[in-house]
């Protein structure tokens, strides 16, 4: 492509040499075991959870109670605390998660408001995923202690503790959430920098990514607190006016969802869920003519497909459909309609197991 300088040639040689002694050979069997239809595909997300914090443990039990308001409410009705009636697949997903819980008690079947029963609540935690429209927010419902839901929820968002490997956090790894609090004047997120200043945008982070990183925390904090109040930040105890190069002085409002959220979210079943057939898929989509398309794949082949419509077009609104499938491991792909014909679809995928 371009002409190279001697320094560039030097780097080329250096990098080639640095890894020249590595000859991995036995990966294929391991990959095949995980992609075969009978394999337990979700057995090893070990490293993701290896960080060993309480928040991580919580994330592993994720969404034991996933509920979605099925009513014709505004999209906002689906944010915030789980409040809908328990659907059968939510219970299935809850029972499927049993054994995964580390320390937290299982929600009793048939109840939606887990909070009063076992002191945890399910809150939306927002992460960044890639879409054809650039990075956007995806929602991952997670269980957190009811006593202080916002702090662990925002920490999970910042640290990238997502249950879906397609979702990440752009925040520097040294940053931590100290405390999320709310009073009459708004919401405050107290951050710890961990030594690296957080005011400036790190080299390599685009300004879109930086804006989205801030919005990740704004969305998560507001939903955990059921509030639309602007969010202020402190870093190491001092009020912050800039975070990752983004002006946060005077508090940050929730950015419009159309420019922030991915156009399709699957909220249930969650990644790795074990369900009984038929199972119900629910989520939110902002789709052209409200068309939502889905495929159920096994071993990369489509075994079932269908489409449905979200309640409204051009607005994040609820959709749901039922899937009937024989026992086995599948990938559920839900996406918007390819109006452009270019294959530019926004999708959300979940690996699931249909139990016998």
């Amino acid at each position: 492509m371009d002409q190279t300088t001697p320094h560039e040639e030097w780097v080329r040689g250096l990098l080639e040499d640095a890894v020249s002694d590595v000859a991995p050979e036995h990966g294929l069997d391991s990959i095949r075991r995980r992609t075969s239809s009978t394999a337990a595909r979700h057995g090893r997300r070990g490293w993701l959870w290896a960080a060993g914090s309480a928040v991580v443990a919580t994330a592993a039990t994720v969404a034991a109670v996933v509920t979605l308001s099925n009513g014709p409410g505004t999209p906002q009705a689906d944010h915030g605390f789980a409040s809908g009636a328990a659907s059968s697949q939510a219970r299935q997903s809850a029972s499927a998660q049993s054994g995964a819980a580390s320390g937290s008690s299982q929600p009793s079947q048939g109840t939606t408001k887990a909070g009063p029963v076992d002191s945890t609540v399910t809150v939306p935690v927002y992460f960044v995923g890639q879409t054809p429209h650039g990075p956007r927010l995806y929602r991952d419902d997670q269980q957190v202690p009811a006593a202080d839901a916002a702090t662990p929820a925002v920490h999970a968002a910042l640290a990238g503790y997502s249950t879906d490997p397609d979702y990440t956090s752009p925040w520097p790894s040294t940053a931590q959430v100290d405390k999320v609090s709310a009073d009459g004047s708004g919401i405050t997120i107290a951050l710890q920098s961990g030594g690296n200043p957080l005011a400036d945008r790190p080299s390599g982070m685009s300004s879109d990514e930086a804006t989205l990183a801030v919005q990740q925390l704004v969305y998560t904090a507001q939903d955990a607190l059921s509030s639309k109040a602007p969010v202020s930040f402190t870093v190491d105890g001092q009020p912050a006016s800039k975070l990752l190069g983004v002006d946060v002085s005077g508090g940050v409002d929730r950015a419009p969802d159309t420019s922030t959220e991915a156009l399709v979210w699957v909220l249930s079943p969650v990644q790795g869920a074990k369900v009984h057939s038929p199972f119900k898929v629910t989520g939110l989509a902002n789709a052209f003519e409200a068309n939502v398309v889905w495929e159920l794949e096994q071993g990369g082949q489509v075994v079932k497909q269908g489409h449905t419509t979200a309640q409204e077009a051009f607005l994040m609104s609820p959709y749901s459909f039922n899937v009937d499938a024989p026992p086995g491991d599948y990938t559920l792909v839900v996406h918007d309609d390819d109006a452009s014909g270019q294959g530019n679809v926004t999708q959300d995928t979940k690996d699931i197991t249909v139990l016998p």
Partner: protein
Amino acid sequence: MTVTARWDADTAVEELYAAHYRRLVRLAILLVRDPETAEEVVQDSFVAMHGKWRTLKEPDSGLAYLRQTVVNRARSVLRHRGVQSRYVATHRAAPMPEEPGADERALADERRGRVLDAMRELPGRQREVLALRYYLDLSEAEIAETLGISRGAVKSHASRGVAALREQLRDRLGDRLEDL
């Protein structure tokens, strides 16, 4: 556009594994340093590609997806592992073995270690751009697409990255830098 029969997901994994697995693992080592973690990252990426094969369809898209997923997962792993940078910090002061009789192989291993350490010390984007540009030989346009950044940003990360890598290695190797 291909005119040959389309691969199914299993074939795609096998073919792309045969052609690219080693290089992708090496790429991942440049990003995360630890070989075991690197293999995990690449295997995870193959599994993810298998799951998405229906939307990828073509070998080229499969490979592009693999590259992008390896980079994204490597980034995510690093975010969860402060351990790695501490490892680098405690080892950077150790001098290069100087005995003239030192085994050449040990010296080569040492040198490789220093280069990988230096890569780990770079800002994430610079490291990613250097690895994609000078190890995988991707074009600026391909890197821009892989990382979701502009071509201008690729150019500036590349030139800053080269300078920063030299700087890092100068710290580690002093006047032996030019021998590399």
